[in-house]
């Protein structure tokens, strides 16, 4: 217990003194996760909306695959991306393995189905007759789709939060494809694993506290975007 307490005190000290090592890890984590989330949102929200609103042959199969994707084990994604980007893999020529780009790719694969799936569910939850009403008021297909996405915005925001949550806390995939290289591919989660193994509990706890704080801030921002007061 005293170790835990001592670790917490040290953690606060490292955070308050803006320890360069902590800052470097935090900065890389935000860059990788932020970029991955941006790609997932830009692709996942329109695709999820499309899947909810369009009827096409094979739609059920696509939805079944999507639901499977929502539960993908990150470490399996890491393995897949590793094989894809390894020297002998089909995308080996890119030279992305053990770089932040590989980590971003893995995180996009993990978060995209979540953003798509939750967006699809929220759009499907919008009154189906509303689309007829919008068309009747003179909306083009794009205008109606945009309006429906806005109506489903709370669910869309939840989809982005879920995507964020799935990758900010993920360790298996980034460890495999990033390699946990100091100053280059070391993120909050991989650093926590390493520091815990080394017995540097103060640094591990500092990173853990930052990770929790990030999750809290992200969720609080999303709640504000949803128009809800924090009370």
């Amino acid at each position, binding site marked *: 217990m005293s170790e835990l307490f001592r670790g917490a005190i040290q953690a606060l000290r490292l955070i308050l003194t803006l320890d360069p090592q902590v800052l470097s890890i935090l900065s890389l984590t935000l860059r990788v996760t932020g970029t991955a989330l941006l790609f997932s949102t830009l692709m996942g929200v329109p695709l999820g909306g499309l899947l909810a609103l369009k009827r096409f042959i094979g739609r059920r199969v696509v939805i079944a695959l999507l639901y499977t994707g929502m539960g993908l084990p990150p470490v399996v994604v890491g393995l897949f991306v590793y094989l894809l980007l390894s020297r002998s893999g089909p995308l080996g020529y890119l030279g992305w393995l053990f770089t932040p780009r590989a980590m971003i790719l893995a995180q996009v694969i993990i978060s995209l189905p979540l953003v798509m799936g939750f967006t699809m569910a929220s759009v499907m939850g919008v*009154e189906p*007759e*509303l689309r*007829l*009403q919008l*068309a*009747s*008021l*003179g*909306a*083009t297909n794009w*205008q109606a789709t945009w*309006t429906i996405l*806005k*109506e489903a915005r709370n669910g869309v925001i939840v989809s982005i939060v879920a995507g964020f949550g799935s990758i900010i806390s993920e360790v298996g995939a980034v460890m495999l494809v990033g390699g946990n290289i100091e100053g280059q591919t070391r993120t909050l989660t991989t650093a926590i694993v390493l520091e815990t193994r080394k017995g540097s509990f103060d640094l591990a706890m500092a990173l853990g506290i930052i990770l929790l704080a990030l999750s809290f801030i992200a969720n609080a921002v999303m709640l504000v975007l949803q128009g809800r007061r924090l009370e």
Partner: protein
Amino acid sequence: MNGTVYELRDVVKLYGQREVLHLDHLEIPRGEITCIVGPNGAGKSSLLRLLNFLESPTSGQIIFDGHPVNGQVPLALKRRVTTVFQRPLLLSGSVYENVAYGLKLRGEKGIEARVRQVLERVGLAEFARASVRTLSGGEAQRVALARAIVIEPEVLLLDEPTANLDPYNGSLIEKIVASLNREQGTTIVMVTHNVFQAKRLAHRVAFLLGGREIEIAPAEQFFTAPTDPRTAAFIRGEMVY
């Protein structure tokens, strides 16, 4: 400008294998209020969706304003017609945002003044900034009506707009609809279960049953001297098949 705004020839609408509408010939006169009456499942709402070009007939021909409408309907033509549904189907946000919606889609100018004018007409001027979540059912339906009439459609389609309302709000909507037709000459097609409402409002009444047009006649004749016994039974409030 009188004449016929819609002409439907041999229009059939199937949902899967089920035939919901089969009209040999139906004309909707311009500038009049036509009420479509009939029991549930008569095809009334399906007819409105065809008239608003929200769906295409499985076969047959719809002629709008003298022009045959086939396949992809041009946006400009679609925007001459709008529908108020049985439920208000409002967007989240304020009353103003809802009423301004159609005008914004069209990129029109002077939106604020037009919205204010229409809200006054439906008796909701002081509600402009109110959230639609705070409205009663009757107020919400008046917002839906305002949202439709602010775009000044040539044809206003009403799908049982007073079915869920109390007598006060129902009568208010009837008055607005009647004045819209009288003052602006808007062609109105209104689906209703309520024969008394049809009697109060309609210039012409059509009776649908099982997707077929049983009778269409000027209102007075329809109610006083129906030619089909099924129409007479429906008017008397009897179950018809």
